[in-house]
């Protein structure tokens, strides 16, 4: 079995344009995204499994699925 450096996807929020509605919080199966200070969403990368449900639900389209090393 070969071990590869795997690319994994994580949700990344454009916080400057987030409207803090929490649609992302509602759909996240891992509780990995929360709205900080009622101002913008933030992702707990260690809990995020990269499913992309939050990005799909976000009405402002401010969540991007970004590849990270890991």
């Amino acid at each position, binding site marked *: 079995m070969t071990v590869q450096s795997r690319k994994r996807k994580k949700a990344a929020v454009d916080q400057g*344009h987030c*409207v*803090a*509605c*929490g*649609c992302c*919080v*509602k*759909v*996240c*199966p*891992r*509780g990995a995204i929360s*709205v900080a*200070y*009622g*101002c913008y969403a933030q992702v707990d990368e260690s809990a995020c499994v990269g*499913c992309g449900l939050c990005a*799909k*639900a*976000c*009405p*402002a*389209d401010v969540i991007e699925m970004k590849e990270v090393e890991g």
Partner: protein
Amino acid sequence: MTVKAAKHWYDYLWILSTLYLALGFVNILFAWLGLLCFFIPLLMALLGKEKGYCNRYCGRGQLFALLGGQLGLSRNRPVPRWLKSRWFRYAFLAFFMTTFFLMLLRTYQVFTGAGNLREAVTLLWTIQLPWHWAAPGTGVTPWVAQFAFGFYSVMFTSTVLGLVTMVLFKPRSWCVYCPMGTMTQMICQVKRPKG
């Protein structure tokens, strides 16, 4: 395998929002209950619950998610750039507040006797819909009824707008420019710990 976020009791508050809209067709006085959707979010934001209302309890957002998401009544397209721009959100809030104060002014005129009760619901700030079937009986003070018609107009108009943008764009597109959402976010931005 589909993984789903856990459901909570407050994920069913859309039932209350739907009931509210329906009751306005029965007796307009039920519109007064809508004040709860006005004060609860503001008080929560002011009293340290941040955006708890939007993030958990708002039944209207849930209703759009249900109709547009689960029932598929949405094209699921991104909202146009201008709709989510800061100036539009703030301008819409300002416009909304202006019309809200005009509504209060009308209520006051009816209270002082300077204006007559109009048994109509105003859709999109311009279209007068006759609504006499839901008018309260003659025993009700006219200004109380006037406020109910005015407030229901606000709720009805925003629901219709929300439904339109739900169909055209993402299910909860309304949340992008919802005046309550913008207002509570502004409060949180001001209150946010600095540094």
